[in-house]
């Protein structure tokens, strides 16, 4: 590897290549645990959607498809920028102009951070609207605007319980992802040798893409399927 000279190899490893493989394998295994973590909720969604499909149909009419679509677009652009940064740091040769590389990485990742914040703002605005309409599940839930079939059985609440649980957990992951990517933007734009952090960036990038992929499933399940 062209930049192996600038990487300090940690003790258990023989060389930089092995260390990189370990970092990436470790991240994939972590993401596998995350899939199982979200998996429990997706199973819950499947069960209740099967049992109460009418409630899910009524519930999804409260969601803004355009707003959700916009949020999806914002996330995907962020993912693209992370992929470009990862590519840039991977491909850069050791004698590249470090100042230019720093500026590019800082720019891409800074923009990703802002897009992430934009996504969360839109999501929280949606939460605000739903809560305003009395659709936050719990004792204060106001089902009066729904047909009797889903109102009297309280099954309509299940849609919103799952909506807030699943998108809320996703938002929590977004907060972590924004902190990580934002931190990387600062770190890389100040570092003398950004390439030393290539493994870190790849790992954080994988995490960011994963969080996006979860949303790619949440969007159709809660917004598009009516």
């Amino acid at each position, binding site marked *: 590897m062209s930049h192996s000279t600038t990487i300090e190899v*940690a*003790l*258990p*490893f023989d060389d930089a290549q*092995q260390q990189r*493989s*370990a970092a990436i*394998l*470790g991240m994939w*295994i*972590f993401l*596998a*645990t*995350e899939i*199982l*973590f*979200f*998996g*429990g*909720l997706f*199973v*819950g969604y499947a*069960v*209740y959607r099967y*049992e*109460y499909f009418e409630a899910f149909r009524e519930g999804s009419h409260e969601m803004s498809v355009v707003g959700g679509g916009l949020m999806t677009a914002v996330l995907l652009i962020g993912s693209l920028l992370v992929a470009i940064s990862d590519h840039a740091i991977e491909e850069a040769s050791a004698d590249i102009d470090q100042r230019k590389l720093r500026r590019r990485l800082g720019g891409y990742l800074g923009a990703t951070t802002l897009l992430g914040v934009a996504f969360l703002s839109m999501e929280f605005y949606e939460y605000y609207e739903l809560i305003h309409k009395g659709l936050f*599940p*719990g*004792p204060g839930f106001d089902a009066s605007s729904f047909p009797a079939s889903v109102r009297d*059985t*309280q*099954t309509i*609440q*299940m849609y919103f*319980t799952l909506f807030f*649980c699943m998108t809320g957990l996703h938002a929590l992951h977004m907060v972590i992802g924004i902190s990580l990517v934002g931190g990387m933007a600062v770190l890389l734009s100040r570092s003398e040798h950004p390439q030393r952090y290539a493994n870190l960036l790849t790992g954080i990038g994988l995490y960011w893409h994963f969080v996006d992929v979860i949303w790619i499933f949440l969007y159709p399940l809660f917004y598009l399927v009516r």
Partner: protein
Amino acid sequence: MKSGMMEHALNNDTNYLNDGTTLRSWLLTTDHKRIGILYMLSITFFFFIGGAAAVLFRLELMTPRGDMLSPDAYNKLFSLHGIVMVWFFLIPAVPNVLGNFLIPLMIGARDLAFPRLNLASWYIFMAGGLFTLLVIIIGGVDTGWTFYTPYSSTYANTYVILAATGIFINGFSSIATGLNFIVTIHLLRAPGMIWFRLPLFVWTMYATSLIMVLATPVLAVALALIAVERIFHVGIFDPAIGGDPLLFQHLFWFYSHPAVYIMILPGMGVVSEIVPCFARKPLFGYTFVAMSSLAIASLGFLVWGHHMFVSGQSVYAGLIFSLLSMLVAIPSAIKVFNWTATLYKGTIFLKTPMLYALGFIGLFTIGGLTGICLATLAFDIHVHDTYFIIAHFHYVMVGGMVMAYLGGIHFWWPKMTGKMYNEWLGRINALIVFLGFNLAFFPQFILGYLGNPRRYHVYPDEFQVFHVMSSLGASILGVGYVLPLFYLIWSYKFGRSSGQNPWHARGVEWEAASPPIKHNFYEVPVVDYPAYDYPPAGPDFTMSEGELEPTSPEQPQRRITSSHGT
């Protein structure tokens, strides 16, 4: 202490134990061996907490009436016993103590792939454990270790959320350890250490790690949903507002059945190391034993419904889960048969670790066979929620896993400390544990079959004789658990030096000094031989004065890269 170690660390007298003796050097260590020791001390602590709860409720069960504990206190005690023993002893026992200590040594690595993550896992474990203890001190939880809804989510007025939080935190430690092991086994094997030269202990650790990584998150989400339901008063599992309480059971057992294999596969790994060494024979059917671990790990994910035969799940689901559960018996039996075949015509030395290993094989077989009984729908309905279940899983987890853990500790004690414990005390203790265990738990099979339900502190008078036997056995078992604490610590302080490889075992871990140096090997070993390369023909050892003695002075030597071998 130092003078004793001079003998076997010939190059100099530093090893991982005396390389830094301050508290700081232990609390901030990233050495997998020291972290293993930290885990050993902590799980021993939790083991005795969980054991103390068992002492109290076994005392209560001496009489048919509730005369010592209120029903609430009884409920809290068995919940405490289950939670602490499962999550803070059994699951971390072999993986986090012996696995941490041995995996890098066995595969010829300098450390685990992520040493700092390893240390972090210990801190997370301690945080989760101490948090759970705090819950117990402020009032406890009475849901049992299974947290069944809707009791846990709607009705229980004990500290359910806090207890769930302690377990949730602990889950991260499990995941971190499993992840670390998988990456280490994939990437850090020494030159020549191909997959099919790995000791079977490493294979079982790999299978266990897969379960830890893939099952634990599902428990986490199930517990989180209980917390959400209690905090926001929503109805995820509450049938009154459209929730499905069975969904919790599905999620819980999707974790907890595979978790049973987290609690037994590592024990099988330990036994697979001990048996060939003290039979002086290569392990019979290496490939089958290795693959059976992966088979158990993967089949284990498909059988959770056998905990729900009487829950009202569909009978067809019951049928399939029953069939799949019986299939798990095949890889388990493969292991038992191969250990037995290894013993056949072996030169068997009944040293302390071997006694534990033999105890494991017998008791695990009883636990496993009663498991097949329970996988049978009709029989399960008769004994569901009775002491039969209690007896069954204690035969697997205590008769199996705790025996294996103790066997492993005795087998690798010389490796960990460089000291040898008193062999006769060790053997007598193994016998005490075996007898005490059977007296404690065999009567519970009868109790269960006769219909005594679990989780009650009162019972009909005619059951008293079995309960008294069980409590007596439990107190004998208690002696067997306390005694090693004393003679092992004594041997660490004052015991004689064990030498580098007192059992003349053939694993790569024995090529390091005992105790090993900080980064394990002076030079990375080259592995050009299979696992368990015990000489195939005839006894190569005799027992003289309780010690293994080579029959010929010339033992096959490894081309070890440095000259410090014994």
